[in-house]
């Protein structure tokens, strides 16, 4: 309030601070005394001061009259009931969260276990060749039965169309039939037709067979057991003769 102290007290200044005159800690002592001195010499401001003091008195009276007002006991009773209800509900909610977390953890562990069980790769694959023991891998979302975009089936069709060309490359089986990841195991070796196909290395990899040098463009011959609906169930790689 140093700026205020320097300003001369007049009616405008007086009105500006009138309602803070009786309020503690708002005006400093010098400014307050200056305002009161002004009111002593100005009839209008003296009347305003009297009004303001009367209002203060009235408000204090009103506050004192209402000081004992309280909400009825039923409000407290209702709140205490709610407090107890929440106190009981909270541990249950915590427990249910814990159970949910445990369930989720168990599901993750189970999923990991199944994944490990169905995907037992055993170390590095010999460079430049397809693994001698192809294994079942994760199901590939792109491999769907009766889907013309299925790389296996597409290659199989091309394989059958160009069978005479590929027949020279493919000769004897190199591995036993290995079920594909999504195969219906009971139907794997029963009632299916064996189809010899030529697959690109990418297509072979998409079936879950570990392949090194995927970018290599040379095709790979394989036998597939295909069920009546055209779904490949098992694969057997075919050893290739070196034509060079």
């Amino acid at each position: 309030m140093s700026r205020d102290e320097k300003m001369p007290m007049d009616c405008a200044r007086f009105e500006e601070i009138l309602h803070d005159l009786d309020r503690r800690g708002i005006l400093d002592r010098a400014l307050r005394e200056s305002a009161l001195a002004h009111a002593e010499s100005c009839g209008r401001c003296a009347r305003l001061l009297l009004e303001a003091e009367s209002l203060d008195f009235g408000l204090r009276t009103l506050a004192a009259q209402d000081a004992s007002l309280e909400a009825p006991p039923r409000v407290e009773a209702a709140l205490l009931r709610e407090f107890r209800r929440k106190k009981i509900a909270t541990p249950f909610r915590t427990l249910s969260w814990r159970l949910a977390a445990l369930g989720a953890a168990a599901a993750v562990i189970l999923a990991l276990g199944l994944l490990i069980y169905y995907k037992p790769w055993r170390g590095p694959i010999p460079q430049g060749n397809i693994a001698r023991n192809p294994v079942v891998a994760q199901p590939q979302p792109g491999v769907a039965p009766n889907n013309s975009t299925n790389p296996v089936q597409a290659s199989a069709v091309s394989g059958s169309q160009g069978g005479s060309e590929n027949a020279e490359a493919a000769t004897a089986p190199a591995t036993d039939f290995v079920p594909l990841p999504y195969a219906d195991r009971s139907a794997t070796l029963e009632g299916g037709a064996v189809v010899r196909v030529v697959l690109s290395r990418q297509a072979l990899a998409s079936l879950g067979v570990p392949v090194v040098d995927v970018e290599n463009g040379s095709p790979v011959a394989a036998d597939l057991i295909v069920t009546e609906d055209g779904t490949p169930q098992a694969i057997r790689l075919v050893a290739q003769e070196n034509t060079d």
Partner: protein
Amino acid sequence: MEPTDDGLLRRMIAGDEEAFALLYRRKHPAIYRFALRMTRNVAMAEDVTQEVFMALIRDAKRFDPTRGTLGGFLFGIARNHLRKRWELERRFTHLAEDADESGTLSSAEAPAASSNGSHGQTTAGHFEFTAIENTARLRQAISTLPENYREIVVLCELEEMSYEEAASALGCPVGTVRSRLHRARAILLEKLRGVPPVRRSPAVTQ
């Protein structure tokens, strides 16, 4: 030594029912009075009080002691509840001077109001709150203030909050609290003088 509000709140959050009861008994009268003075409706004041403390039970951790007092926080909740209700029930937005509906307090019914019937207006255009003045007229004048001014009078004058506390409760700057209170008092004086509340022209410098 009495436990602090913060201490009680911490105990309450930990599930101590006694701490909550103590906190309620300590804080609820001011909230109830605030709601009652803002609405002049006992049932609504009870509802608002209950809602404020329900909110505290549900989410006491929302209170941040670095941003103000617990009292200010509770007043803020009460004010929000009142505003929501006013939005729904427009009839409470501008309470008629002679509002005397069922459940709404008239001046004479106000819990602690005396009713000797005399007014404080003495000389023409001049108000003096004399010893024989009853508070009914002042209560009435407060209840007819616009909402923004009424809440500031209730908080700063009747609940004796500091400007800082009121600013925290209302979520506005201290300067706004001060200027609103000055204007509210000026309107009150005009009402009590019996002249229509008009904006005062710049004072004549002596």
